[in-house]
C-alpha cells in the first residue's frame, strides 16, 4: 500500500470518467491509473495510461494482472441506444461487457475494490413509489428494458462478485441525474429544445447531482474505505415545472397519449435521445434518500439540487425566455406604483412627458 493504489477506469472517454481520472492524478496515494475504452478520450490526461480495448476483450484480464490493478472503477455503462449504436449492441456492451470484466476481476489476485457507477434509475419510476427511496428499496416494477434494466443486472453481477470474493470491497454508487458544464445528459437535451416538453397533468419531482460532487464521490469511493450501496444526490427537490421557471424557459405540456410520438420526433431530429423509461420518469420523477451518503460514506454534497441546477443553467448558458432581472424590476415598479409617493411621481412623469 505504500506505493498507492493502482486504478483501472473503464469507459475513460466518458466525460465523468475523464474528470475522475484527472482528480485521481492529483492524488499522491494513487500510484497508477489506466483508462480503457474503445474510443480515444478527448480530455487531457497526464499520468493516465490509455488502453484501447473493449471491456469484453480478454486483454482486460491481462491488463489487470500485468499492472497489478487493485481498484476498478466501472463507468462504461451506456445510457442510450444511440450512444452505443443500437439497443442490441448497448445490451451487449453493458451487460455482457460487465460480466466479462467481473469475471476477469474475480480471477485477478490483486483486486481489492470494485466501484460501480450506477444510477437511481434502478428504482424505476412509478406512482406507487415511496416518497424517498432508500438503498434497500427496489423498483415497484422491475425494469423491463433499456438502461435501467442493464444497470439492475450489472448491479446484481457486481454483488455476486462481492459474494464470491470476500476480499473485494464492492461499492455501488447510485447517482441521481448528473448535471454539469461538461456532461451531456437527457436534461441538457430537454432544456436545449425550443420549449421544454413536459407531460400534461404530471409534474415529476427531480433530484440532481452536480458533476463536481459526482467526481468527489467517485474519488472517495476509489481511495476511501466505505464499501456499500449509496444514493448520491444533492439535497432538496425540484419540480420539473420549477426547473423550467428557474431556467426562465417555457414548458410545453404534451398529453400522455402523444408523449412517445413527440419523443420519437426528437429522436429522429437527432436533437437527443429520450428513452421510454425517461418518459416515465417525466411523469412520476424519483427522489432518493441520501442519509447514508452523509452518515456512513461521510460525504456531504457541496451542491444542493437547486444550486446544481442553477449552476448547470449558468454554465451551459441556457438562455431564458423570461428574464429574471426584468421580472424583479417589474415587481419593484409595481411596488413603487402602489405607494402614494410612487403615484405622485408617476403622475408628474406623465404630465411632464405629456407637455
Amino acid at each position, binding site marked *: 500500500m505504500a506505493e498507492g493504489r493502482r486504478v483501472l477506469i473503464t469507459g475513460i472517454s466518458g466525460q465523468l470518467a475523464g474528470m475522475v481520472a484527472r482528480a485521481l492524478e492529483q492524488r499522491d496515494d494513487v500510484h497508477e491509473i489506466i483508462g480503457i475504452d474503445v474510443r480515444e478520450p478527448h480530455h487531457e490526461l497526464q499520468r493516465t495510461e490509455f488502453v484501447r480495448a473493449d471491456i469484453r476483450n480478454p486483454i482486460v484480464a491481462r491488463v489487470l494482472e500485468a499492472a497489478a490493478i487493485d481498484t476498478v472503477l466501472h463507468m462504461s455503462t451506456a445510457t442510450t441506444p444511440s450512444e452505443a449504436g443500437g439497443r442490441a449492441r448497448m445490451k451487449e456492451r453493458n451487460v455482457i461487457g460487465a460480466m466479462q470484466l467481473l469475471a476477469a476481476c474475480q480471477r485477478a489476485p490483486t483486486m481489492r475494490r470494485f466501484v460501480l457507477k450506477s444510477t437511481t434509475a434502478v428504482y424505476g419510476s412509478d406512482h*406507487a413509489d415511496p*416518497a*424517498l427511496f432508500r438503498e434497500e428499496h427496489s423498483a415497484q416494477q422491475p425494469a423491463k428494458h433499456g438502461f435501467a434494466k442493464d444497470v439492475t443486472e450489472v448491479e446484481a453481477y457486481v454483488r455476486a462478485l462481492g459474494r464470491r470474493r470476500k476480499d473485494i470491497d464492492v461499492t455501488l454508487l447510485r447517482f441521481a441525474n448528473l448535471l454539469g458544464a461538461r456532461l451531456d445528459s437527457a436534461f441538457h437535451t430537454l432544456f436545449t429544445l425550443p420549449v421544454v416538453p413536459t*407531460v400534461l397533468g404530471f409534474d415529476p419531482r427531480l433530484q440532481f447531482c452536480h458533476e463536481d460532487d459526482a467526481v468527489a464521490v467517485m474519488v472517495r469511493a476509489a481511495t476511501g474505505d466505505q464499501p456499500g450501496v449509496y444514493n448520491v444526490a444533492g439535497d432538496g427537490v*425540484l419540480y420539473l415545472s*420549477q426547473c423550467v421557471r428557474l431556467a426562465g424557459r417555457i414548458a410545453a405540456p404534451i398529453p400522455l397519449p402523444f408523449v412517445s410520438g413527440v419523443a420519437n420526433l426528437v429522436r429522429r431530429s437527432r436533437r437527443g435521445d429520450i428513452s421510454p423509461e425517461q418518459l416515465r420518469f417525466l411523469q412520476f420523477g424519483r427522489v432518493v434518500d441520501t442519509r447514508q451518503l452523509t452518515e456512513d460514506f461521510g460525504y456531504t454534497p457541496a451542491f444542493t439540487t437547486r444550486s446544481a441546477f442553477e449552476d448547470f443553467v449558468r454554465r451551459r448558458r441556457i438562455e431564458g425566455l423570461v428574464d429574471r432581472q426584468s421580472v424583479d424590476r417589474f415587481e419593484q415598479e*409595481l411596488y413603487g406604483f402602489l405607494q402614494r409617493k410612487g403615484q405622485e411621481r408617476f*403622475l408628474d412623469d406623465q404630465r411632464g412627458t405629456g407637455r
Partner: protein
Amino acid sequence: MSQASEQHAQVISMAEQRAARSARGVADATPATDSRPRCGASTLDGRPCRNYAVDGGRCRVHALGSGSAGARGQSAPSQPMAPRPSTPAAAPFGGLGIAGGTGRNRVDRRRPSRASAPEPGHDEAFARAQQELQRRGYAGAIDGLAALRDVADDRWIDALRGMIAFLRRRVTGDYTVDEFGFDEDLTTHVLMPILRPMHQRYWRVGADGAEHIPTDGGGLIVANHAGTLPADALITRLDVFDQTGRHARELGADLVFRTPFIGEFARKTGATLASGDDADRLLASGELVAVWPEGYKGLGKHWRDRYKLQRFGRGGFVATALRAQVPIVPTAIVGSEEIYPMLFDMRIVSKVLGLPYFPMFAQMFALPVLGPFALLPLPSKWLIEYGEPIDTASMGPEVAEDAMALFDLTDQVRDRIQGMLHRNLMGRRSVFL
C-alpha cells in the same frame, strides 16, 4: 404653463364638472323656483326627497316606484340623454364615483355626441378628452388605488403586494418544495384562500376541541371519510391550518397519484402515498399527518349507510403512530356525508373507467333543471370535532409488532370516532342549519 394645466384640469374633470354643474344648477335655482312643488316621498335614508314633483306630488324617481311610470320620458335638467329610464338612477352614483365613475361617464359622454346632438365643439372636446386619457395612461388606476387606500387602509395594498410577490416567486421558480413534493408557498397562498370561503360561508364549519391537535411534534389525525369527493380532507386540512398554523399532511391512495392533475395537485399540497415508509418518515420528522383510513369505502358509501364507519383499512395507521410514538387524534366530521348524497353506485361505469365507484348523487336529478349548478355540493352545516388524543408513547414502540394490540387500538379509535359522530349528529338542529 399655468394656462395649460388649467385647461388640462378642465378637460380631465369633465365628469366632476358636470356633477358640479348639476349640483350648482339645483343650488342656484333653489330660491327662484322654490314655488314649484317638491316630491312628497322620502328617500331611503329617511330625508325628504328634494326632486321636483312631476306627477301626483311625486318626482320621477318615486313616481316610477309607485308604478305609474308608463309613458313618462321627459328629460330631467341634470340628464341630457333621458330616453333610457334607468339613467336617473345613475345620477346619484355619478356624484359618488371617485374612480368607478370614470368609465360610466366616458360611455355617457360618447352617447349623446353620436346619437343626438351634433353640437359644435362637442366632438372636439371629446377628442381632446380622449387624447388626454391616452396621455395620462394609468391615472385612472392610480386614482382608484388612492381611493381604495382611503377606504381600506393599507391592508389592501399589502395584500396586493403580497400577491405580486407571490406571482414573482411563481414566475421565477423562487420557492422550495420538500422531499415529498409539498409546495407550502402554493398551498398557503392558493389552496387555502380558495377553500376558506367554502369553509366559512358555504359549509360554515364549526370546530370543536382544536386544543387536542398537537401544536408541535408529530401527530396523527384520524378522521371519517365521506361525501363522494374528498372535500372533507381538504376542509379538515384548512381547519387544522387555521386553528394551529400547521399543515396536516394527508396520506392518499395510490389512485390519486396515478391520476393526471389530481396526483400533481395532491403532491404539491402536501399529500403523499399512504404507505408505511412515507408515513413513518413524515412522523419521524415531526409532521402532523392526517389519515382517512376508511378510504374509498368511506367516500363512496351509500346514503343509507351515512355516518356508519366502514372498515378501517388494515389498521396500518395505528402501527405507524406506535412506531413513531405520536398521539392519535380521533376526529369526527359531521356534515360531509350530505354534500353529495350517493343514491346508487353505477358499477358498470366505474368498472369501465377503473374507478372504485361511480356515484349517482341526489343533485344529479336536478341536472335538466339547474344545469351545471346541480353538480355543486349541497351546503350542509359541518362540525369537526377533534377528540381526546390517544397516547401511544405510554404503550411503547414494541406494541407495533403485536397484531392483537393493533386490532384493539384500531377498534378503540374507530369507536371513539363513531361515538363522537353519534353525539354530534344528535346535537345538530338540521342538516343545513
